[in-house]
């Protein structure tokens, strides 16, 4: 049986911006792992293929070993096609069985189980036609499978997911190095320190309220306090961090200051002091010293977020921090308002005041307004340099993907630039 992860349509992916502008939905994290890893584990598939938005196909193909947007894999074996917004923990569709197409209330595909025999009735030259005809020719069922609806759902679920993942992984104990003096509060059964991980002296690991998992080759520097539930990814470094409960820190991150109930995708830096709470941070982000986000309004009312720069969505949640796309750079002292959206590649020069709640992708936010700045070429140069520092390569295919993101996000950026020009003219 082959598992095909088919990325959600654009209008759904938009609910997971800014991260989903440059990643398929299944790459988003919750708990220890990505949504895709959870689905693959749940299904038990060892043969996986991906279909992503066309503009990110070449770039994604370079990242993974499995087939990407390869229609030839639509032929052959029994298959299960799954939309990544389906929650893995609730995915109870048997891998084997008669063909059926599971649709949500709006008629969007959540999954399709297709037998080898039925594959012969479907066109296999293009995934869109393949799905359309599968919906027409195969039995449809109304599925009530729970789904992720918005990016902040992942933040909200993270603490619980961390605890569930710790139980599922089933590891505990110290296989890495823990230098004394040190303190572990709570049960040692709720702590796992992987081989190669190094915990310096004067670190407190508090597992009383939830488990703590420190992955391979991570380094926890002195005066760090880690509250569970928490996952610290491979080769991540914590630098005297006040790591409050409910954080997932992806691989190769460097994190200092205070962090609470947040997800950092990976390869990002928040080296210095400053608070980040209920936030989702993409890859290759650098948050300057004292960058701080609000995650709670003064009147304790629910937080609204603008994912498209036009329409505010009431999250219904009292705590939502910032959503920060890949390659964002913030200056020292940047203040992010409650429920802020910072599009990928944006460069922020803080003014001492809270930023507008929507900063478009590729924006140069300078002197309190969105400008064209030095253009995308300079942002690419910075991205290339940042990646090179971690022995990662900025490739032509990646640049092509970002060019597409630049074009897709132009309307909102141009509107913000016009607004900025008006502000400049009245100074």
């Amino acid at each position, binding site marked *: 049986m082959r598992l095909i992860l088919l990325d959600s349509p654009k209008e759904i992916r938009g609910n997971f911006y800014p991260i989903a502008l440059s990643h398929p939905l299944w790459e988003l994290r919750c708990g220890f792992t990505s949504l895709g890893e959870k689905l693959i584990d749940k299904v038990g598939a060892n043969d996986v293929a991906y279909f992503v938005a066309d503009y990110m196909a070449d770039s994604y193909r370079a990242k993974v070993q499995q087939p990407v947007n390869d229609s030839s894999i639509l032929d052959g074996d029994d298959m299960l096609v799954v939309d990544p917004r389906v929650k893995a923990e609730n995915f109870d569709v048997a891998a084997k069985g008669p063909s059926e197409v599971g649709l949500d209330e709006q008629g969007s595909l959540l999954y399709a189980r297709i037998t080898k025999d039925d594959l012969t009735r479907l066109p296999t030259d293009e995934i869109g036609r393949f799905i359309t005809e599968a919906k027409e020719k195969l039995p449809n069922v109304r599925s009530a499978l729970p789904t992720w609806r918005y990016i902040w759902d992942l933040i909200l679920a993270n603490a619980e997911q961390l605890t569930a993942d710790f139980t599922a992984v089933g590891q505990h104990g110290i296989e890495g190095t823990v230098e004394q003096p040190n303190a572990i509060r709570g049960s040692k059964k709720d702590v796992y320190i992987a081989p190669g991980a190094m915990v310096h002296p004067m670190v407190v690991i508090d597992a009383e309220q939830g488990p703590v998992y420190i992955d391979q080759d991570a380094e926890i520097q002195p005066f760090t306090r880690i509250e569970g539930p928490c996952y610290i990814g491979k080769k991540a470094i914590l630098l005297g961090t006040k790591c409050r409960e409910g954080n997932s820190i992806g691989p190769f991150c460097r994190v200092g200051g205070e962090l609470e109930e947040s997800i950092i995708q990976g390869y990002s830096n928040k080296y210095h002091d400053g608070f980040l709470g209920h936030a989702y941070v993409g890859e290759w982000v650098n948050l300057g010293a004292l960058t701080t986000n609000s995650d709670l309004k003064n009147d304790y009312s629910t937080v609204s977020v603008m994912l498209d720069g036009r329409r505010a969505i009431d999250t219904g949640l009292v705590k939502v921090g910032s959503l920060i796309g890949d390659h964002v750079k913030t200056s020292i002292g940047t203040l992010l308002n409650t429920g802020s959206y910072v599009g990928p590649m944006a460069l922020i020069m803080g003014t001492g005041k809270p930023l507008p709640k929507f900063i478009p992708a590729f924006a*140069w936010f300078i*002197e309190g307004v969105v*400008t*064209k700045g*030095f*253009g995308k070429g300079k942002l690419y140069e910075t991205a290339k340099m940042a990646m090179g520092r971690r022995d990662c390569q900025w490739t032509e295919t990646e640049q092509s993907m970002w060019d597409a993101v630049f074009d897709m996000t132009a309307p909102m950026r141009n509107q913000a630039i016009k607004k900025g020009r008006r502000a*400049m003219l009245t100074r």
Partner: protein
Amino acid sequence: MATVEERVKAVTAQVLKLTPDEIKLEDSFTADLGAESVQSIELVAMFEEEFGIEMDEDAALSVETVGKAIEFIAEVCKEQGVDVEQ
């Protein structure tokens, strides 16, 4: 209508807090007029607004002197069909 030179000097003076008389064609925006990188960005934005044109950021920001800016803007106006007084 004011010439391109007069308009470029007026915008430069406004952004850099100078008087137009202080600005010479051979002046470098950074070395002579003291423009910092942030002000360079503002200058490009204000030139676009003044002339109703779109400039390539890399090309615009590589212009060093006031005289070269006048030439560059006149050329962009011509390319984009914007009438200006030479």
